[in-house]
């Protein structure tokens, strides 16, 4: 089953065509890498899929429904949850509260129940905390529950961001350069986690410009250059592709 599909996806910023007629899809349970050199348009594609940018033309389908131009919160509630390229969490909250908020859209706490602090709202609160703890254990952050998010080291902050996204219970997890600023060990650890998340039945779209790092875990990769798809297929085959080598290394003399 197709989890995500784009057709003729195009984004123009004034005269600049950042993404040009992009068509690709992602199967259920797949890890798809969206790669390309800096400025290739990866993040623009990512932002269009998650609703942060409105496409100039083209369509986006998520689980057979059209999501083109929907608000980010709507897309997240449908089950496509993103992380951010730059660290983005609730710095002044505890680690646990960060993840509790991730579970909010699935919880049944209505506005007024929450204000009136009804028994049902309290039960939901207890349940949310339990779920959040479970996710933090999965991400090996359980011992940091009561720490403020801003006080965590960078590697743990990135894990916390992923925990928040997981708490929103995504069918499709969209990761925007999750390996940025990480050392070798952290990269290896993060890749193992992404593999584990897929193991739990979720699909993953991974945007990355570090091609080597993703070849091992991606089932397929889509390579972008100057807003166009220049190659698609299994990572090792794509790595041998002349157009890809040219895009990354320049034309051979």
């Amino acid at each position, binding site marked *: 089953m197709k989890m995500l599909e784009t057709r003729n996806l195009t984004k123009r910023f004034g005269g600049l065509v950042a993404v040009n007629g992009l068509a690709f899809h992602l199967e259920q349970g797949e890890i798809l890498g969206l790669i390309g050199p800096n400025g290739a348009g990866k993040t623009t594609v990512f932002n269009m899929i998650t609703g942060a940018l409105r496409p100039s033309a083209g369509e986006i389908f998520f689980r057979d429904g059209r999501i083109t131009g929907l*608000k*980010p*919160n709507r897309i997240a509630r449908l089950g496509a949850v993103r992380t951010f390229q730059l660290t*983005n969490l609730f710095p002044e909250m505890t680690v646990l509260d960060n993840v509790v*908020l991730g579970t909010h859209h699935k919880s049944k706490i209505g506005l007024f129940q929450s*204000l009136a602090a009804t028994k049902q709202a309290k039960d939901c609160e207890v349940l949310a905390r339990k779920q959040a703890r479970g996710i933090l254990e999965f991400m090996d952050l359980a011992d940091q529950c009561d720490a403020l998010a801003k006080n965590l080291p960078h590697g743990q902050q990135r894990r916390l961001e992923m925990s928040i996204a997981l708490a929103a219970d995504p069918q499709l997890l969209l990761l925007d350069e999750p390996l940025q600023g990480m050392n070798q060990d952290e990269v290896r650890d993060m890749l193992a986690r992404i593999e584990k998340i897929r193991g739990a039945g979720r699909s993953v779209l991974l945007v990355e410009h570090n091609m080597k790092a993703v070849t091992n875990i991606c089932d397929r990769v889509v390579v972008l250059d100057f807003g166009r798809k220049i190659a698609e297929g299994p990572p090792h085959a794509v790595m041998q592709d002349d157009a890809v080598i040219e895009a990354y290394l320049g034309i051979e003399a």
Partner: protein
Amino acid sequence: MHEKSRIKGVILAAIVVLLVAMPGFTKEPYVLHILCLIGINIILAASLNVILNIGELNLAQAAFMGIGAYASTFLVMRLGLSFWVALPLASVITAAVSLLIGLLTLRFRGAYFLLFTFLFAELVRILFSNFWIGIFGGIPGITNIPKPRIDLGSIALITFDSKMEFYYLVLFLTMLTILILGRIDRSRTGMIFNAISQSESLVESIGISTMRFKVLGVAIGCFFAGMAGSLYAHFVGIITPSDFAVHSVLAPIAYVVVGGMGTVLGPVIGTSFLMALSHFFLRELGFYELLVYGIIIVVIIRFMPEGLISIPRMVSSWFAEFRPASR
């Protein structure tokens, strides 16, 4: 931690008892008058703080207070409603107006929201000054606004003519406001308000409509601004458009910042401190009053950026620093 919250509870209870017993210590009308004004301003500052909590500064907060004040006098003087009906109704009307304004302006953030609310405040002032003068009274405003009264026929008749009766009314409503806002702050809704001010994009990305919660935050804030306005109108007895002009929001902003932004008790502490300071202690300075007042605000903001409410934490961290040395 448990002991700390118990100490806090005892202190709060003591303050409440003290405030309830206050008229026993002083029958001085001036003191009670100022205490009433402090209470009304606490409600206004707290309402401003609710909106600050979602990361926006509403320059029209005083204008919304004005809407509450004018709505309440209209309901009482034109429609003949009792004050006890007019007060909640005026608050609801204010919240409803803010809901509309919120839907229109909250898609703009930061400086743009600020500008919109600035313009709205001016709009409200011009409306009250120049339009429907028969109803709003033009620039001179409305006078002889009746005092509230409780008429239980032959059993009892309480008119709120003296400062003391009004003092208890203001005290009750101020405490009610703080209790409700405290409850909201601890609820899931309060947590989301707070999260929005920290990262709107992240809140949106986990499936929560930031627009919905921001509109709600503004409506809650303006409900209490309207309540403060209704109280003010019937307490002072005279309202004019300039009472609620855009400059009137500057003092409450100072109260919130000096007390501690984003906390429930911060606006209470800031308003009480600054208003008591200027009305009870700086009066004698005459010409220099505003100068000294301004310097005190600047010094507090410079050395306590998190407001007066951070004093206990600062003190305990000093002690923590000294402890290893004494060992």
